C-alpha cells in the first residue's frame, strides 16, 4: 500500500463532498424551519385578526344605542306614515300565549301531497325515522312542513318535562360524547356521527348549544337533534346556547330588548359580514326553505328554544354549560327558575305597570298584566301597525313621549346592566319582580334569574383572576381561574365543559385544565381555519378527544395553501375596517406628518393605525400584507388609502365620506333594515329605505340630499317593483379583492 504523506485524493474528495452535503442539508433545514416559523406567525396573526374583529363590537353597540337615543330626542313624526314607520321600529311582534301558539302553529290540517318524496314521520318516532332523515338530508331533501311542525310540537312537549339541569350517568351508558357549537354546519354533524356512531342506548350524547346560525343547515341540524332526542330521551341531552335565542336568530328586535339585543346580536353580526355569506341567519334560512309555513315554524322554534335545558351534569362531577360561569352562579337557583320564561335572554323585562298603564289602556284597552303562560317582556300588542295602536295619533308630542319613555326605560335598565349608567337614581322599576303567577316561589328577582341564565350562556374564561363584565359580547362575564375553582369546590365538581368560543384545534383547556372548551364547527371562519372536535368521557371522567375537519378540500391543501386562504379572508376584513376609518386615519397620519410631506415612517403608521382601530393587533407583523410599496422606509399614506378604496366595487358616484359611513356602520344598518322588514322577506320598500337613510344620515351628520339617496339607490340594481333587497345593498358595499 503505497500512500504518501498526503491523504488519498479520492478520499479527500468524497470527504469534501459529504461535508458539502452536510452543510447543504443544514442550510436547507435552516431555511425551511424559518419558513415554517413564519407560517406559524402568520397563522396566529390571522387568528388574532378574526377574533379581534369578531369580538370588537363595542363601538357598534354604543353607536346603535346612540342612534336610538338620538331618534328619541330628535324625531317627531310628522306624518302618519312616519309614525307607522317609527312605531314599527319600536313595537314588538306578537307574543303568544300557549293556546294561541297551538292554534297558530297547527299542523294537523296540513296535507302532505303525493308528490312529496321526502321522509314521512309518524309519532312516536323510531330509529328508522332518524336514519331516513339522515339519508334524506344527505340527498339535500327537505322535510315537509307538517312533519317539521309536528316534530317541534312533540319536542316541546318532551322538553317541558325536563329539569333545567340534566343529569347523566356514565354507569348507565358507559361513555358520554360531548359536542360543542355546530352553527348550522350539517357536514360536521354527519362527520361526528360517522366517526363516533349514532346516538343509541349504548351511546350517549350531550350537545352543548349553538346548533343554529351562520351555517346554512341550522334547521336540518335541529330536526336531527330533536328526532334523536325523542327517540332516545335517556341518552340524548341538549343544552341551550346563546344562539338558541329568538332575538339572536332574527337579528332584530323590539324596543324592549333593543339595546341589549343589539349589543349581543351585533357581535353575531360583526362575525359574519367579513367572513362568510352573511345572509344565513337562522330565521332567514327557515323563511327561505319554507316560504308558506316559515313563520309558524319559526314561532314554534322560538318556543322550543326557551324550553331547552340550561346545563348538564355528568356523574355529579362534570358541569356542562354553553358559555361559562360567573362569581354569582348559583346552581340551586338555576335548577329552580322557570327557564321557559326567558324566551330570549336578550329581551328586557316587564316594565313597571304604573308607567305603562295609561298608554296601554289607550292602546288596546286590554289589561296588559302578566299573562299566566308566563310569556315575558312585552304586553301583547297587535301585530299590524294600525292607527289605533300608537297613542293618540293626533298628538305627536304624546306619541314621541310614549316612544321616548318606553325606550328610555329599557336603555336605562340595559345601561345599568352593562355598567355604562348615566342615571343617578336607581329606578325601583324591577324591584318587585316576583312572578305574579307563582307567589310561593322563592323571591329572587327576575333580574337575578335573568343574570344567572345570561352568565351561563354568554360568559368566557380569561387567564387573569377575578370576574368582570363581558363588554365585548354585551352579556355574561369574563371569569378567571379563581371563579372556576370556587364553583368546582362549592358543588364538588371536577371540571367544567363549555363551548361558545372557536378554538383552532377544536378544543382547548384553560384554568389549569379545569375548564375545557369544546367546539364542533370546523372551518368556522373559513375553509382551513380550524378543526372541530368532540370529547368522550367514560366512568373515569378522563377526556378523550377526536378532531376532524369537514371539508375535503382542506385535506388536499398544503399547510401553506390553507394558511394563505384563511389569511386572505382575514386581511380582506382588515382592509375593509381600515377603509371604513379613512378619515380618522388621515388625521392620525397627519399628526405625524407636520411638514405635510404626505409620508410617514412605518413605525408611526403602526402606532397611528392602532390608535384609530383599537384592535390590539400586531401591526408591525401584519404590515407586509397591508402595505405593499414603500420608499426608503416611508409610506405615502394618501395613496395607500386610495388603494384601499379602489378595492371596492364601482361606487364612483357615491361620495367617499358617505361610503365610509356605510362601511363603518354596515352592521348597524343591517339591524335597522331588519327591524323594518317584519315579514323577514329581505325586502323593504323604497320609501322605507329612504326614511331609514334620512334618519340615519341626519344622526350621523352627513349631508345627504334626496339626489344623494337616489344615487345610492341607482348604484345598485334594485328590483323594479319598488322594493329593495337590502342584502344586495349591503353586499354592494363589501370590499372585493382587487383583480390584478
Amino acid at each position, binding site marked *: 500500500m503505497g500512500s504518501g504523506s498526503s491523504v488519498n485524493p479520492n478520499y479527500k474528495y468524497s470527504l469534501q463532498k459529504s461535508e458539502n452535503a452536510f452543510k447543504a442539508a443544514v442550510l436547507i433545514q435552516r431555511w425551511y424551519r424559518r419558513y415554517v*416559523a413564519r407560517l406559524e406567525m402568520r397563522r396566529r396573526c390571522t387568528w388574532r385578526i378574526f377574533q379581534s374583529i369578531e369580538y370588537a363590537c363595542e363601538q357598534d353597540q354604543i353607536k346603535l344605542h346612540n342612534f336610538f337615543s338620538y331618534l328619541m330626542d330628535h324625531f317627531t313624526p310628522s306624518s302618519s306614515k312616519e309614525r307607522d314607520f317609527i312605531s314599527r321600529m319600536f313595537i314588538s311582534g306578537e307574543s303568544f300565549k300557549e293556546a294561541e301558539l297551538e292554534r297558530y302553529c297547527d299542523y294537523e290540517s296540513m296535507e302532505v301531497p303525493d308528490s312529496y318524496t321526502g321522509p314521512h314521520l309518524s309519532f312516536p318516532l323510531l330509529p328508522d325515522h332518524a336514519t331516513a332523515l339522515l339519508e334524506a338530508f344527505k340527498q339535500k331533501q327537505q322535510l315537509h312542513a307538517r312533519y317539521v311542525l309536528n316534530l317541534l310540537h312533540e319536542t316541546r312537549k318532551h322538553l317541558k318535562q325536563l329539569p333545567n339541569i340534566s343529569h347523566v350517568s356514565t354507569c348507565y351508558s358507559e361513555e358520554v360524547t360531548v359536542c360543542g357549537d355546530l352553527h348550522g354546519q350539517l357536514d360536521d354533524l354527519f362527520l361526528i356521527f360517522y366517526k363516533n356512531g349514532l346516538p343509541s342506548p349504548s351511546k350517549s350524547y350531550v350537545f352543548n348549544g349553538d346548533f343554529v346560525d351562520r351555517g346554512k343547515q341550522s334547521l336540518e341540524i335541529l330536526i336531527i337533534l330533536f328526532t334523536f332526542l325523542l327517540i332516545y330521551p335517556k341518552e340524548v341531552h341538549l343544552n341551550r346556547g346563546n344562539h338558541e335565542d329568538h332575538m339572536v336568530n332574527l337579528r332584530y328586535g323590539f324596543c324592549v330588548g333593543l339595546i341589549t339585543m343589539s349589543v349581543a346580536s351585533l357581535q353575531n353580526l360583526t362575525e359574519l359580514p367579513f367572513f362568510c355569506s352573511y345572509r344565513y341567519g337562522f330565521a332567514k334560512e327557515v323563511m327561505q326553505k319554507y316560504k308558506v309555513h316559515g313563520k309558524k315554524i319559526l314561532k314554534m322554534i322560538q318556543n322550543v328554544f326557551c324550553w331547552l335545558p340550561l346545563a348538564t351534569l355528568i356523574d355529579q362531577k362534570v358541569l356542562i354549560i354553553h358559555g361559562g360561569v360567573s362569581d354569582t352562579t348559583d346552581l340551586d337557583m338555576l335548577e329552580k327558575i322557570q327557564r321557559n320564561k326567558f324566551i330570549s335572554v336578550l329581551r328586557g323585562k316587564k316594565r313597571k305597570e304604573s308607567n305603562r298603564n295609561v298608554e296601554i289602556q289607550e292602546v288596546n284597552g286590554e289589561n296588559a298584566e302578566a299573562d299566566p303562560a308566563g310569556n315575558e317582556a312585552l304586553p301583547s300588542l297587535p301585530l299590524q301597525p294600525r292607527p289605533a295602536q300608537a297613542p293618540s295619533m293626533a298628538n305627536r308630542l304624546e306619541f314621541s313621549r310614549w316612544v321616548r319613555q318606553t325606550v328610555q326605560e329599557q336603555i336605562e335598565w340595559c345601561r345599568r346592566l352593562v355598567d355604562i349608567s348615566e342615571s343617578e337614581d336607581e329606578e325601583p322599576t324591577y324591584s318587585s319582580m316576583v312572578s305574579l303567577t307563582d307567589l310561593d316561589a322563592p323571591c329572587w328577582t327576575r333580574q337575578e334569574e335573568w343574570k344567572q341564565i345570561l352568565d351561563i350562556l354568554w360568559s368566557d374564561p380569561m387567564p387573569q383572576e377575578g370576574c368582570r363584565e363581558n363588554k365585548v359580547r354585551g352579556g355574561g362575564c369574563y371569569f378567571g381561574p379563581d371563579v372556576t375553582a370556587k364553583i368546582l369546590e362549592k358543588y364538588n365538581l371536577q371540571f367544567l365543559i363549555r363551548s361558545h368560543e372557536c378554538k383552532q384545534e377544536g378544543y382547548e383547556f384553560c384554568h389549569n385544565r379545569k375548564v375545557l372548551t369544546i367546539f364542533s364547527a370546523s372551518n368556522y371562519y373559513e375553509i382551513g381555519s380550524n378543526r372541530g372536535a368532540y370529547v368522550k368521557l367514560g366512568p373515569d371522567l378522563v377526556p378523550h378527544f377526536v378532531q376532524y375537519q369537514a371539508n375535503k378540500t382542506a385535506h388536499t391543501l*398544503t399547510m401553506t395553501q390553507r394558511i394563505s386562504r384563511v389569511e386572505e379572508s382575514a386581511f380582506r376584513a382588515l382592509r375593509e375596517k381600515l377603509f371604513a376609518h379613512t378619515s380618522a386615519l388621515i388625521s392620525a397620519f397627519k399628526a405625524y406628518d407636520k411638514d405635510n410631506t404626505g409620508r410617514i415612517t412605518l*413605525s408611526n403608521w403602526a402606532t397611528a393605525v392602532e390608535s384609530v382601530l383599537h384592535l390590539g393587533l400586531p401591526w408591525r407583523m401584519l404590515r407586509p400584507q397591508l402595505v405593499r410599496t414603500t420608499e426608503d422606509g416611508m409610506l405615502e399614506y394618501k395613496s395607500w388609502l386610495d388603494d384601499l378604496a379602489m378595492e371596492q366595487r364601482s361606487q364612483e358616484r357615491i361620495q367617499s365620506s358617505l361610503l365610509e359611513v356605510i362601511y363603518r356602520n354596515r352592521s348597524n344598518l343591517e339591524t335597522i333594515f331588519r327591524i323594518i322588514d317584519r315579514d323577514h322577506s329581505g325586502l323593504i320598500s323604497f320609501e322605507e329605505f329612504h326614511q331609514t337613510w334620512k334618519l340615519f344620515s341626519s344622526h350621523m351628520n352627513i349631508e345627504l340630499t334626496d339626489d344623494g339617496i337616489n344615487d345610492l339607490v341607482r348604484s345598485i340594481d334594485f328590483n323594479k317593483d319598488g322594493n329593495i333587497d337590502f342584502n344586495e345593498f349591503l353586499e354592494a358595499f363589501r370590499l372585493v379583492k382587487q383583480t390584478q
Partner: protein
Amino acid sequence: MAEQEGNGEDGAVAEIEKKIIEAFEVFDHECNKTVDVREIGSIVRSLGCFPTEAELHELLAKVEEEEEPTGYIHLEKFLPVMTKVLLNRSYRPIPEDVLLHAFEALDENKCGYLTKDELVKHMTEEGEPFTEEEMEEMLSSALDPETNTVHYRDYISMMIVDEPEDLPQ
C-alpha cells in the same frame, strides 16, 4: 403624541424593540409577558432571522431562567438579547442563489431534481435532521407526486414568492 421618529440610534432601537414585543405577544397566551420556551424558535425566526438549531439553543441559554428552567421565557430577558441579535444582524437570511447551490450540492447527478428518497435521506439523516412531521410537510408542497421528484428550482421560486419582504430595516 405625535413625535417624529428620529433616524438616530434611539429611534432605531425603539422600533426594533416594539417589533420584538409585538412578535412576543402573539405567542403570549396568558398575557403575562411569558411564552413557552418551545415557541422561541418561531418568534426569533419570524423576526427575520435564520438561525440553525444549534444557534437557537445558544440563544435560549441566554434567555432561560438561570436557576431552574421553568419552561417559560420572560420578555424582560428576551428583549435585550433579541434586540442585540437584530442590531447585529445575526443569523442573516439565505439568498436565493445560495439556497439553490445547496440543493445542487445534494443533486449528485446534476439533473435538476432530487428523488423523494434522496431528499428524505439528506433531510432526515444529515445536518440537523428533520422530524417526520417536518419531512412530511416539506414533501407535501415540494414533491411532484407523478414523478416522485422534487424540482428544486421551481420549488424555491414558489416558496420565495410567498414571502413578503419584511426584514428589519
